[in-house]
């Protein structure tokens, strides 16, 4: 099977993630969409790695996972503290600062 299809899949996932970020209110979900985008990237890396027949892509994928994990740590910390002080995880409620 042609690995290019995986690329299309990756693009699809990435787009879904991006759209999710735009349309979902809950910070957690938004954040998960970002994670989805990152994983789409991973898929792309692995696929390219397969196509090029070198390992760089796969190694990068590991790095990405670590980074994603780190992001989760930071992200959740922030989101949780926001949630505790506002009792809401909606990103639209967090709009004190504007104009």
């Amino acid at each position, binding site marked *: 099977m042609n690995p290019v299809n995986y690329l299309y899949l990756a693009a699809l996932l*990435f787009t879904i993630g991006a759209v999710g970020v735009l349309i979902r209110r809950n910070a957690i979900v938004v954040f998960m969409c970002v994670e989805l985008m990152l994983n789409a990237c991973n898929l792309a890396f692995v696929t390219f790695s397969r196509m090029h*027949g070198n390992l760089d892509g796969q190694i990068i994928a590991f790095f990405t996972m670590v980074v994603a994990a780190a992001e989760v740590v930071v992200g959740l910390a922030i989101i949780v503290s926001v949630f505790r002080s506002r009792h809401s995880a909606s990103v639209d409620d967090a709009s*004190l600062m504007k104009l």
Partner: protein
Amino acid sequence: MNALTVHSMWTTAAEPLNKIPAPKIEYVQLAPVLIVVGAAVLGILAEAFVPRRGRYVTQVFLTLLALAASFAAVVALAAGGYGTTKAHIAAMGAIAVDGPALFLQGTIILASVVAVLTFAERRLDPADHGHKVDSFAAEAAAVPGGDHEKAAVKAGFTTTEVFPLALFAIAGMLVFPAANDLLTLFIALEVFSLPLYLLCAVARRKRLMSQEAALKYFLLGAFSSAFLLFGIALLYGYAGSVSYATIAGVVDGSVGSVDPALAQTMGNDALLLIGFALVLMGLLFKVGAVPFHMWTPDVYQGAPTPVTGFMAAATKVAAFGALLRLLYVVLPGLTWDWRPVMWGVAIVTMLGGAIVAITQTDIKRLLAYSSIAHAGFLLAGVIAATPSGISSVLFYLGAYSFVTIGAFAVVTLVRDAGGEATHLSKWAGLGRRSPLVAAVFAVFLLAFAGIPLTSGFSGKFAVFKAAAEGGAGALVVVGVIASAIAAFFYIRVIVLMFFSEPKADGPTVAVPSVLTTLTITAGVVVTLVLGLAPQYFLDLAGQASVFVR
């Protein structure tokens, strides 16, 4: 590709370990980064083991020491000729040690030193329950206004973690402009972004805003880094490698097809262009260029002011460094593709920043928009695509970062009951009440406005000159118009401070400790020196304007 080759891949991977060459790392040349990272780790340990009372002193001491050592290392490397003759790629092609890298690292470190001084300032707010307080929350985890927080304040807790966090961020920033492959670029980006997200969240006053800023910054940052990453993926797909050198080679066709598999994608410019666009977007986000700027005002406003100053200065330096390297090292063969695009970005950034700033009413947001406009001016220099363009941008960054930190440091001084009084109306008549502070701030504003005899003018002139020489005369004209518009709101603040009568319930100007005083003094001195006699630093930037390939 057939199953056999795949199998052979696995087998090559499965060779006996002794066959694998150990990576060669030039630790000495990476010293600046390593020192900072090490200090950061120590800082974490300190948090764990040093008793609460001692932490503040320990952290401040440790941080400043580390930064000093790291700066010494940079100077040593530069003196050792690594900036010019011995410039080369270190750490298995991951990190470049060359003029721009060292210059920018030096700038970042100095800026950080000054910024850290403001982090450590504990004189501005009145002592709370007999404990000196700084700009950071007693306990970031506590709910604002909750009993837990009250207890923390009573106990005199302070978030000394900000220092290690800052160190991590600095480490990332040091790597960012030196990164010589896309992976390092990405990692560095995250390394300095994540601590910044946290730093934004830990303001002592106005905590809701602070947390909101952190949330916005984090979500958008993650969003943009996802784009960056996808771009990297595409570039990797195009070139089959993430190393700048290889990609550059592939772009200008000097590298033939390494293997047949690569050949099929290599022809495909769509991957290259889209990937480039996405990576560019990731960097422009950090730079704060229109239309990727929208996080800037909110985050600048919400974050603790010392952090804002730090971000505004250091992040910009690092991001522009990376941008320069990307455009000049990776994609020189693509100049004719990216220049028009960047033209557009530069123009909208200059004008957008300047125009929207006019109607701002909060000093921090005002400075945020001014930083956007300045990003536009810098882009004009970047576009020049000439050595003088590089040097001018380097110089501008150096000049700009000190003005910025100085300005934000002054903002921390003007306070009323609710903490910093950042609404412009509160600044009315400041010049009457405390002429000195107002005068200093006026100097910074004039520098922002690019009035001659300040560093702002030298920088602007250098950049515009480079742009004009690089054939971007039109950009210069737009830049000039933007500066004219920008001048208006800087002047507005000066008018407010000097020519309008002070309000009865106006804010007071806190008398800072030596730390902030040092920061501001440094800002003023640099502003004037670079304005009156910039030649030496221009030479420095000029020597440092060659990227290693």
